[in-house]
């Protein structure tokens, strides 16, 4: 008798302790980010400045853009390991095209447009192939995208000769590195160019194009995932493939769309990289591949699918960016830094498990 009563009660009774734990699990990433910022602000001179925060954001831009694409795929229960080299491939394609057109003397605006379009078209292809392999041929996402990684890497190296591709038109580095607004003491605010004659050390630039692209991409991704049918279908797919099928969702088509979205966002990351570094490099995204997955996982998504939020990925990416920068500013010995992100991922998994444990009761 007592056992039956217990079972009936357990599903409805939540103690305040359980509620507190559940709330903490949901916001732990935010809390952790806040704590990191607080600790670094106090112990690292120069950390708590507009310049420093902006630099963290700018250096996180490619990682976050790629991670946003990864978010879509992971929520649906998949994964895309090819993003790093799709990013590199697109960076190279855009740079090679722009270099050729630039040296042939075409106007810079046109060169930029052709380069960007070429990059996006080429970036679309790995997404399509991934989608076909995974949706139509039922290949496991891990394997299919791992194979695509190699193919993208091959073409990126072939096209670039393994070298970094330079000789870009000036517009590329200007778009990637100029600030929209310049603020200097005793000078009027200027736009797109620093105040003439000002001492560059005291000038603060605010907002660059890569940063703006990152912010807009995050907002759009959030909107799509949270407020559109496309987003709903994505969560449904991750929750249960069969249930989605029975609900009338064209699972195969939707899966393909997701991998295309992921590849296009990786391509956008590659284009942003090309602008920031004024060149195209096949290895531009090599370091970001695993970091993009880490950002999504730290942000609360489950690798089994069905859960995750754009804001979570944003927090995850910024936790890593803040960590990298803060530890360098404190001059922590490099070897200790290597493990920092790994530890945080483990923490994210533990918190996820603890939260799941609460939810099960």
């Amino acid at each position, binding site marked *: 008798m007592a056992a039956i009563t217990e079972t009936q009660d357990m599903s409805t009774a939540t103690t305040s302790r359980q509620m507190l734990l559940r709330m903490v699990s949901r916001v732990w990433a935010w809390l952790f980010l806040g704590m990191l910022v607080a600790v670094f602000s106090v112990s690292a001179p120069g950390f708590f*400045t507009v310049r420093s925060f902006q630099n963290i954001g700018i250096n996180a831009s490619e990682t976050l853009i790629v991670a946003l694409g990864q978010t879509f795929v992971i929520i649906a229960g998949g994964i895309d390991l090819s993003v790093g080299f799709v990013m590199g491939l697109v960076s190279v394609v855009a740079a090679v095209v722009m270099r050729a057109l630039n040296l042939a003397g075409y106007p810079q605006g046109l060169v930029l447009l052709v380069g960007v379009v070429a990059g996006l078209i080429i970036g679309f292809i790995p997404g399509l192939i991934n989608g076909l392999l995974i949706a139509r041929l039922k290949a496991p996402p891990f394997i299919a995208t791992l194979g695509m990684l190699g193919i993208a890497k091959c073409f990126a190296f072939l096209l670039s000769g393994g070298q970094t591709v330079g000789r870009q038109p000036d517009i590329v580095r200007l778009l990637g590195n100029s600030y929209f607004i310049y603020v200097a003491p005793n000078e009027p605010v200027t736009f797109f160019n620093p105040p003439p004659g000002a001492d560059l050390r005291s000038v603060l630039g605010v907002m660059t194009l890569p940063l703006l692209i990152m912010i807009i991409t995050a907002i759009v991704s959030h909107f799509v995932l949270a407020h559109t049918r496309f987003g709903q279908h994505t969560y449904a797919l991750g929750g249960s493939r069969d249930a989605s099928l029975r609900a009338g969702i064209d699972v195969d088509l939707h899966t393909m769309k997701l991998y295309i979205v992921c590849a296009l966002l990786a391509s956008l990351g590659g284009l942003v990289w090309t602008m920031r570094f004024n060149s195209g490099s096949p290895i531009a995204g090599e370091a970001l591949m695993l970091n993009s997955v880490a950002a999504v996982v730290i942000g609360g998504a489950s690798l089994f699918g069905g859960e995750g939020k754009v804001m979570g990925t944003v927090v995850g990416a910024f936790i890593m960016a803040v960590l990298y920068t803060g530890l360098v500013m404190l001059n922590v010995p490099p070897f200790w830094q290597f493990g920092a992100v790994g530890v945080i991922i483990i923490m994210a998994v533990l918190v996820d498990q*603890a939260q799941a444990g609460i939810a099960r009761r």
Partner: protein
Amino acid sequence: MFRWNRVWQWTLIVVLVLVVLAPTALAEDPAKKPNFAFIAGVNDPFYITMQRGAQQAADLMGVNLIVQIPETWNATVQTPIIDAMLSRGDIDFMFLAPVDKEAMIEPLKRVVDAGIPMLTVDTFIGDGDYANGPVTFPLSYIGSDNVEGGMIAARALAEALGGKGKVYVQNVKPGISTTDQREEGFKKGIAEAPGMELVGVDYNDDDAGKGQAQTAAVLQREPELAGIFGTNVFSAQAAANAVKNAGLSGKVKVVAFDATEFAIQMLKEGTVDLVIAQKPAEMGFFAVEMGMAYLHGYVDIPKRIPTGYAVITRDNMDDPEISKWFYTGQSD
């Protein structure tokens, strides 16, 4: 009895938080001495030795040397480290080994814009000619003449093989200024000896395991292969290991660039016949010296400071004047 429940799970989480933050206790106190930032290319004995030389000069001249090392040889990884150093706001001088001669130009412009004098060690940006080339804002390029280094390797192999034979190059990845030049110099040197033939060049991505596999494959398909040139630390390691594993020590001559403990060991054993040592400690020492000179108003720093080589053979490796150039993997 111990039971793994949620309490322990949360305890572990708290412990991990503390573990992550613990390294901040290792953070250094900025001293009143000038702060010199040194950013290496990647973690390997060459840059550790460079750090040793730099630290020696720093101790002599009263400089606070701040060293950071990127996890991989990649512009995307090196750049945030540079930006973090700039954000500190208290760096007086910076020297680094830029990992990409094109992509690192924009990030390094930010260093100059922040008013921090800088120079490059070992590698360069642009074409390395900071006087008349496309990039002129770094104060100096301190490093070996890598074309010459490649030629030394080629001539040494030619001599060891009596001017005739097939040779192969184990290289890192195209686009690194230093190793590109070593390959270029090697090819020039081989061209000088008509009896020598270059059968191939492979790129191992700075991965000794990959290089070993590549070399093993070449040893298989070229039974007449007589000599191999490994262009850096890991490439030389890969070549030596592959030759040894194939039982060809002594039959296939190996010339190794960079005097790591491993290369020296292989030299002793007979698998490697010649080790060309750069002088990274000298590069590091000069970098700190030039920084102090500049900060004290002696601004006419030469735009190019070449450092030399020590050519190490089994015959001279015990001479202390030679052995002092071995790269030791530990930083003191």
